[in-house]
């Protein structure tokens, strides 16, 4: 199948390792990625939307028009982009007057929003379009024995009226994807807590990150697995900053799902950019290498 990736800004600029992991793993699932030129920031659903909802919606609609012109559905890699583009679709479908207002603006650049392309986060495309078996079939080095504490993040699931991904209180999509690469998903108390990044004031995010990592530490997991670059920024560097403030050290590597998938597909850690993370995944990599040495002995 062919899809157009919508990388947004945070992944290509701040965390290009996520882009690399995605580009290297998706073809192994039988997906052809067709790059389209002409996108801008989605735009971001925190700051830009805070400044002006109508401008935010208009730019999102323009990005959707670019995909419509190419005739390709969009696959997103960032929960923020997913939230913006899916909510824009929802609002424009719900309110005909609003759609007209936005289209009047788009007309100035010769565009018209139709609502013909689908937008889904990559993990949803895998589950619904390809089937999770496809992931299992692509695995050459299963991540046996690696315990992954999942962090869902808010915008993949909520509001379910718009996202239609999973039960927002009892989701299973990421557990199933983690199990498909041979790793063990580990539940923990704060699995569904917000990362706090969208809070524009105060010390609250520090407390939230602290509670999430304390809960993961208690769960005995080897690492955290997630699918959103914004959550990643709260947690990779974030756990170090919070640890300093709280006089503790968590040392729990935070790994994007497509990096884990890449390792399971036999890619080297540098090929998925694990070396770029602040909290190193050395222990996990050693465990995987050890397992392999044992298997071949």
């Amino acid at each position, binding site marked *: 199948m062919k899809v157009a990736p919508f990388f947004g*800004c*945070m992944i*290509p*600029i*701040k965390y*290009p*390792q996520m*882009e*690399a992991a995605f*580009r290297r793993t998706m073809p192994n699932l039988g997906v052809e990625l067709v790059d389209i030129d*002409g*996108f*801008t*920031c989605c*735009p*971001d*659903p*925190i*700051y*830009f*939307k*805070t*400044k*002006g*909802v*109508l*401008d935010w*919606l*208009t*730019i999102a609609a*323009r990005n959707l028009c670019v995909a419509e012109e190419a005739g390709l559905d969009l696959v997103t890699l960032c929960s923020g982009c997913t939230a913006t583009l899916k909510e824009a679709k929802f*609002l424009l479908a719900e309110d005909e007057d*609003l759609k007209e207002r936005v289209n009047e*603006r*788009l007309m*100035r*650049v010769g565009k018209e929003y139709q609502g013909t392309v689908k937008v889904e986060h990559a993990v949803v495309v895998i589950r619904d379009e390809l089937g999770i078996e496809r992931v299992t079939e692509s695995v050459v080095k299963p991540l046996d024995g690696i315990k992954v504490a999942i962090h869902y993040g*808010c*915008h993949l699931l*909520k*509001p*379910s*009226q718009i996202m239609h991904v999973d039960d*927002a209180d009892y989701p299973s999509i990421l557990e199933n994807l983690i199990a498909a690469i041979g790793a063990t998903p580990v539940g923990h108390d704060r699995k569904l*807590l*917000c990362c*706090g*990044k*969208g*809070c*524009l*004031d*105060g010390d*609250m*995010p520090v*407390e*939230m990150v602290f509670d999430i990592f304390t809960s993961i530490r208690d769960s005995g997991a080897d690492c955290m697995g997630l699918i959103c670059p914004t959550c990643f920024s709260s947690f990779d560097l974030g756990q170090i900053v919070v640890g300093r403030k709280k006089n503790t050290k968590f040392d729990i590597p935070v790994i994007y799902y497509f990096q884990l998938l890449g390792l399971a597909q036999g890619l080297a850690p540098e*090929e998925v*950019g694990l070396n*770029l993370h602040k909290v190193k995944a050395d222990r996990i990599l050693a465990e995987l290498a050890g397992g392999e040495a044992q298997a071949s002995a």
Partner: protein
Amino acid sequence: MPQEKEKHVTIDFAFRRELDQIIGGDHHNYCYQCGACVAQCPAAQYSESFNPRSILLDALLGRADVLLGPDSPIWLCTNCYSCYERCPQDVRPIEVIIALKNLASNRDAAPSDVATMTENILKTGVSGLITPAVQRIRESLGLKPLGDYPVDEMLKILPDEGKQP
């Protein structure tokens, strides 16, 4: 014994009409103050001064001074969408909070990060800075360098920067 106080409630309808004009702001009218939005609100769990039901009550009363003032609680919201998930009245409380933030931004009462980030996007088309270091890291990962974004086209579809038509 608490003294019986005289109860006056003043509602600023002009402010409510202003809120109605922002996309999502009009849904504040549906709130019947049940409090379902509070149960899973992380900002309410982590801060005593935050409560989405109270924010909606202040919106219903049209209390611009509380909602847009320097100590407004709206900036504590983490944008997690739990309240949207829970509300039985389709108020979409988070969207009302964002509409309030729009009104605050129009009055220059938003945290400075909001203007900075928005300006970056309007200037370059993206939210982050594309430095030579970024391009080098991309190259080391075997990724293409990042090029230009269609900023002119993006600006043309925004009437007057920042102002709602």
